[in-house]
């Protein structure tokens, strides 16, 4: 008897597969219900951090240093103070100092990592980067504060500065980074990758560069703060209510309970609102010094100058393959940048240890230190730029071998991760390639492109990959005798649809209708939610919701629940509401949560590799005369584990791809190599994708639960942007025959 291995079952994409359901019954998880915050956002009633009305509100405005390294020698604020409506001008000459940022961040208290820089704003005469705030004007009106800021005269004694990334990297000033336990992969080696490369039948050895990027969320960072004695209330544009609260308590030397941070709605973050930057600190400081409620809404230019962005990269990707195209060596080297006052490495090379099978792997990350505002995480830090290098190189290898790039990827699909030989908790890349290729019509294309009038048409493919993480989350869950439920958790609504999807999770967990679940969020008075970062929030909160629902079921069962009776029926009969909590915000419980988190994270990392993944397929049209690239078609197939809400999940993935279009085609933070000044600190000069740049994006979801993650969720916020740069560069190569290895793919790089 002969047996054949069946081809892997391909599950149809979720959006085209309506789940059987009655209108008012579950399951709710997965259904494309409308986001709950939709009506408030489409009517203009959602309130953002610069929009809270307080009596006697004063306005702050920053004065920035126009120099990269210097000491302040004099400040003349007389003209500013004399301007009508000005309350005060704060500088290092007259302002109480904040407590310093923690010198050594601790995994046990991650709020210690949340300072964007280590600069002692208004506490030092030293300037560490162009744009550093050196004074704050506080005035009765926005106009007076802004104008008076222009009247503050500051004199500087310049100091030597290192600014030019390419020059510093070329001069060999990069320092290798060491791998920290529990952190994403920055360094690693298995076998002898260099020797294997030397022996390989086929070699691709390419160098890549990617520029710095800025988040440029549409809502500029803004803070409103009011003190009442030693207690302060802060409305802030933040991705991490709890971490911001603890950081402010530490810097202002007050108990954590004295700080309340409110942020129900945040106008986009993408990592830029994940750390405490100058605007937040100086608004709280100005409110304390003046005794007035103070609002400081940063200008677009100020956001770019005081909030860090994505590091530029220089990469080398070298691939060795045998005659059949099986990889024998993967080398990925990356040079990044930080700053003497902050910033850190990104996992540019991380996916290169997981994505393909290879007996020999060498991954290296090194950093140069530049006198610029520190770099910070921006959507898929490292993975978004590293995937450009790796997936471009794989495409080049396929071309050199004369093998379809899809087929080459199938040939190199690993059984375990190449770098650590760890099992994948869940890996569906073969299915993704098949689903995406079928939806796109990959097999029907003409490899090598074709000409259509004045346009060169090409097609590209690249994989997407982003590790999955899980953080502790605390919640309370109340079920009332009338059958309604209340979930309380201190997250913020930043566009992910968190309140909507968690209400879906609660509805199924308690067996009640979606509309019966209310969610309270956006306030540090609520149980602690994890930071919105690393695509972790949905899975992390869902884990706590499931635990709380189980606890609630146990509590109800002790109320003499009768067979066949629903939870709500029991509560109605006994005339009681039941509330349970999961996690503890303070004391021994909180410490135990931290220890358990670290232990679980380390253990899980040793046991398996967990990641969301995807396959991008795209079509570009390149103007044969000018080199202008237009993206005309896009299919993305994704494995994000369980899909909590098919509508909002697809939107998040599209959003990642759109930001990836910017990364590929237009986005570049340009720093003047002489002065350290960002030369395009505005949306007129830093080009994010517009309506006209974005075709219809066709999203396919496997909706296949990861067996090791809470509810099977792998996270959808970042995987979408990974691989996009390479998919477009590969399509441009297909169309034009030009392998562009420097981003963005501007006309000068693409034109013949």
């Amino acid at each position, binding site marked *: 008897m002969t047996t054949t291995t069946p081809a892997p079952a391909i599950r149809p994409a979720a959006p085209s597969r309506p789940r059987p359901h009655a209108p008012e019954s579950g399951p709710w998880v997965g259904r494309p219900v*409308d*986001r709950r*915050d*939709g*009506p*408030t*956002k*489409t*009517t*203009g*009633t*959602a*309130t*953002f951090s*610069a*929009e809270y*009305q307080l009596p006697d509100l004063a306005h702050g405005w920053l004065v920035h240093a126009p120099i990269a390294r210097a000491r302040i020698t004099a400040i003349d604020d007389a003209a500013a103070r004399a301007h009508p409506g000005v309350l005060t001008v704060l500088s290092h000459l007259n302002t109480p100092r904040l407590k310093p940022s923690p010198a050594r961040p601790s995994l046990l208290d991650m709020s210690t990592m949340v300072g964007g820089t280590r600069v002692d704003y208004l506490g030092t005469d030293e300037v560490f980067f162009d744009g550093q705030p050196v004074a704050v004007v506080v005035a009765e*009106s*926005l*106009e007076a504060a802004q*104008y008076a800021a222009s009247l503050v005269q500051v004199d500087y004694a310049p100091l030597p500065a290192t600014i030019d990334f390419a020059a510093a990297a070329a001069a060999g000033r990069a320092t290798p980074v060491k791998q920290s336990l529990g952190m994403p992969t920055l360094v690693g080696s298995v076998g002898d990758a260099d020797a294997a490369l030397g022996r390989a039948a086929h070699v691709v050895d390419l160098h890549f560069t990617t520029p710095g990027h800025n*988040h*440029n*969320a*549409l*809502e*500029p960072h803004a803070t409103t703060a009011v003190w009442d004695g030693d207690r302060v209330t802060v409305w802030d544009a933040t991705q991490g209510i709890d971490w911001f609260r603890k950081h402010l308590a530490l810097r202002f030397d007050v108990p954590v309970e004295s700080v309340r941070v409110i942020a129900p*709605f*945040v*106008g*986009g973050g*993408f990592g830029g609102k994940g750390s405490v930057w100058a605007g937040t600190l100086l608004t709280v400081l100005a409110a304390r010094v003046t005794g007035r409620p103070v609002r400081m*809404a940063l*200008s*677009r230019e100020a956001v770019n100058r005081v909030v860090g962005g994505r590091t530029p990269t220089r990469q080398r990707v070298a691939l060795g393959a045998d005659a059949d195209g099986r990889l024998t060596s993967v080398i990925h080297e990356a040079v990044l940048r930080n700053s003497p006052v902050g910033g850190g490495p990104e996992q540019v090379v991380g996916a290169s240890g997981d994505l393909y099978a290879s007996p020999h792997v060498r991954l290296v990350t090194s950093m140069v230190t530049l006198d610029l505002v520190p770099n910070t995480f921006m959507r898929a830090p490292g993975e978004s730029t590293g995937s450009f290098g790796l997936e471009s190189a794989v495409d080049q290898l396929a071309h050199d071998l004369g093998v379809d790039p899809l087929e080459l990827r199938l040939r190199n699909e690993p059984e375990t991760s190449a770098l650590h030989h760890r099992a994948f908790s869940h890996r569906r890349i073969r299915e993704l390639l098949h689903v995406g290729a079928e939806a796109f019509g990959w097999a029907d294309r003409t490899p090598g492109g074709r000409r259509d009038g004045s346009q060169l048409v090409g097609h590209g493919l690249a994989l997407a990959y982003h590790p999955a993480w899980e953080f502790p989350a605390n919640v309370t869950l109340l079920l009332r005798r009338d059958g309604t439920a209340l979930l309380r958790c201190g997250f913020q609504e*930043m*566009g*992910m*649809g968190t309140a909507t999807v968690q209400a879906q999770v609660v509805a199924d967990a308690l067996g009640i209708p979606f509309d019966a679940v209310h969610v309270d969020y956006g306030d540090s008075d609520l149980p602690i939610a994890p930071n919105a970062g690393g695509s972790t929030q949905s899975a992390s909160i869902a884990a706590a919701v499931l635990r709380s629902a189980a606890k609630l079921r146990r509590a109800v069962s002790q109320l003499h629940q009768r067979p066949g009776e629903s939870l709500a029926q029991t509560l109605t009969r006994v005339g009681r509401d039941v509330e349970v909590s999961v996690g503890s915000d303070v004391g021994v419980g909180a410490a135990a949560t931290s220890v358990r988190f670290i232990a679980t994270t380390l253990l899980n990392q040793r046991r398996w590799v967990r990641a969301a993944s995807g396959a991008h397929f795209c079509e570009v049209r390149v103007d044969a005369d000018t080199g202008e690239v237009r993206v005309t078609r896009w299919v993305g197939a994704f494995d994000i584990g369980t899909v909590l809400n098919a*509508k*909002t999940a*697809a*939107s998040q993935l*599209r*959003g*990642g*791809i*759109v*930001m990836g279009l910017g990364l590929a085609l237009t986005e570049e933070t340009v720093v003047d190599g002489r002065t350290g000044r960002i030369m395009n600190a*505005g*949306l*007129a000069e830093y080009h*994010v*994708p*517009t*309506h*006209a740049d*974005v075709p*219809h*994006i066709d999203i396919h979801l496997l909706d296949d639960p990861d067996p090791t993650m809470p509810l099977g969720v792998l996270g959808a916020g970042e995987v979408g942007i990974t691989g996009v740069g390479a998919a477009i560069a590969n399509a441009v190569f297909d169309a034009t025959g030009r392998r562009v290895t420097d981003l963005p793919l501007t006309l000068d790089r693409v034109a013949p």
Partner: protein
Amino acid sequence: MLVVNDAPTTLDLEPRVSLLDALREHLHLTGTKKGCNQGACGACTVLVDGRRVLACLTLAMQVEGREVTTIEGVGPHPLQAAFVRRDGLQCGYCTPGQICSAIGMVAEHRHGAASVVTDDVTTTPDLTPEEIRERMSGNLCRCGAYNGIVEAIVDTAPAMAEMAPALTPVPA
């Protein structure tokens, strides 16, 4: 003196106050958003006498005696529901500007305005997704909700065209 969302409104302002800051800081109509304050992002789009205008590049004094409609005054409008249904928003910060801009855009189209992607400018083109994308490109969405926004406008364009006001020529 101006009319804001049908309400006659008198404001006593410094001459340097923009229409955007007048709305947000003085009238507390914070639905109109400040994204760049330099006319690059479209988040502050409002309607002045039915035409879309960037409130950040307009001095409050310039709208003396004119009718200003903000997101707080457009509804209930079928486009608002369509944005929710099509998920044409994520963080929501660009949304009021997108909606006001789309209402003004459809009115412009109804009055025969061509765009740069219009092949024959002597005729009024259909409001195809390509035309909508071109005409809406002054409104940035960093979350990347563009697909849903275009779908919402396609869904609602016929109804919006019927509701569109008669546009008077732009004052010289």
